[in-house]
């Protein structure tokens, strides 16, 4: 079997935020149709649809969502194979990988990969409980562990072992809001200060409200195409040059090291190995920052900075726009928004934009290789994708 290259020929995304007027199906199709329009492909050219969605079954009582998305996208006459991918917050990053494998193996030529989540049709308390469903239900959440609480415990240990401070955690949020202010699709487009982060209401100490990504609605989509056919559709194909996908213990208390997500470490190594690249080659990265501590741990686990130095590096501006490595130019989950299922694909959309040179005010100069990093649950799953210019 021939393994072909996979490239991105179209991208699309919706506004992210509290989108009261938009239902799940409206969001789901909007991003996909935009991506198809951008790629200028007709319905007949699409071979399959992969949809990443964390929990439509709980948020809107709807399962079987990939079928729904294909239906409402007007593609019923194509009778497409559709796949809904679940994996906590990593679901649409996994969906990209699944779609890419289908293309690489020759089964499909063109696949639309989308991610969508509608989180605001339920109240805050319920939404947070649904987010918690990716934790260990029998041995974490039933005992009072909230999603934020589990990340907060990793933060506390990180502070204990490596001297990370609350100010360094805040630096992640401040940076990402600054980037978000340059992103017209971001949920939050206003800068914030360190003081605001430190004074924000406490959620799970040491994390406060501004250490946590918001509850959001939104969707994003990519059109993936076999690399040897990509030039038919676009002059600026961006290729998926490597993917790493790894899992670890589900429960935080079972992990080898509470300040490291082994899933990220392994996924990163696999991706770099597959792509023949190193962390030094990456100038722009979308890193999972559902909580400020997640970005700090992840830039260490991806080997952009040494273990324990994530907070210091952020505080020193090493991950700011056009610094040594630009992390979360989109605003990250924190400012751009975190409709969970949309995340992996939304991160890819931003990286593709950056590599195409289309990122406007938040353009990273000379970006050749970009990275996305997406987590599922509290780090039980991690997916890393590497993209590069060209086919």
């Amino acid at each position, binding site marked *: 079997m021939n393994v072909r290259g996979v490239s991105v020929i179209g991208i699309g995304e919706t506004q992210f935020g509290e989108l009261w007027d938009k239902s799940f199906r409206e969001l789901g199709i909007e991003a996909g149709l935009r991506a198809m329009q951008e790629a200028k492909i007709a319905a007949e050219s699409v071979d399959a649809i992969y949809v990443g969605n964390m929990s439509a079954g709980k948020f809107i009582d709807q399962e079987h969502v990939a079928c729904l998305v294909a239906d409402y996208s007007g593609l019923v006459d194509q009778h497409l194979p559709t796949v809904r991918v679940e994996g906590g917050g990593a679901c649409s990053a996994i969906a990209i990988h699944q779609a890419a494998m289908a293309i690489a193996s020759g089964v499909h030529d063109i696949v639309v990969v989308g991610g969508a989540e509608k989180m605001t049709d339920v109240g805050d*308390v319920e939404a*947070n*409980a649904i987010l*918690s469903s990716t934790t260990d239900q*029998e*041995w*974490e*959440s*039933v*005992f*009072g*562990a*909230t999603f*934020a*609480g*589990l990340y*907060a*415990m*990793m*933060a*506390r*240990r990180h502070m*204990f072992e490596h001297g990370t401070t609350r100010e360094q955690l805040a630096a992640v949020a401040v940076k990402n809001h600054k980037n978000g202010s340059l992103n017209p699709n971001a949920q939050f487009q206003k800068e914030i200060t360190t003081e605001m982060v430190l004074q924000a*209401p*406490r*959620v*799970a*100490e*040491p*994390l406060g409200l501004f250490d946590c990504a918001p509850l959001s609605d939104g969707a994003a989509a990519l059109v993936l195409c076999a690399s040897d056919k990509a030039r038919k559709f676009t002059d600026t194909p961006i290729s998926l040059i490597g993917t790493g996908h790894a899992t670890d*213990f589900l*429960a*935080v*208390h*079972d992990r080898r090291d*509470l300040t490291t997500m082994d899933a990220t470490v392994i996924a990163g190594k696999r991706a770099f190995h597959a792509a023949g690249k190193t962390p030094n080659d990456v100038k722009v990265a979308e890193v999972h920052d559902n909580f400020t501590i997640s970005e700090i741990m992840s830039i260490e686990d991806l080997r952009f900075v040494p273990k324990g130095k994530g907070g210091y590096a952020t505080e020193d501006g090493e991950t700011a726009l056009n610094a040594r490595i630009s992390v979360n130019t989109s605003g990250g989950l924190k400012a751009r928004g975190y409709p969970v299922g949309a995340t992996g694909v939304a991160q890819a959309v931003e990286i593709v934009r950056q590599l195409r040179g289309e990122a406007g005010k938040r353009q990273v100069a000379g970006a050749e290789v970009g990275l996305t990093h997406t987590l599922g649950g509290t780090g039980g799953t991690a997916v890393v994708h590497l993209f590069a210019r060209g086919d």
Partner: protein
Amino acid sequence: MAIPRFWREIPSRYNLVASKCGNCATVDFPPREVCPRCGRKSMGNMERVKLSGRGQVVTYSIIHDAPKEFEMMKPYALAIVQMDEGVRMTSQIVDCENAEVKIGMRVETAFRRLGAEGEAGIIHYGYKFRPEG
């Protein structure tokens, strides 16, 4: 109501029933059928043991934003405790001020109410931690 789901875990939730690998002697909680370290070599070779209930806090967080079931307890201390047998567990710390919770403090398990399925539903009991002694 998820009655069988909770009932099934009673031995571990009430009495800390864990497993010990016959191959590498590592203790897992809750009990496992396959040792994560030994794989196939451990199958059929996992022994049931009981934890002593004593351990020390390795990390914690004071939870302010709590789900409905824990409304009455907030703000409460959530902790990961490394038991003396080596395995780690997650639960709340009770019977001390939240400000007194520290990494390294010794704790023991207490039998407490975890929650209930509403006013008319089954009550769930299990372990929480309190300062040792």
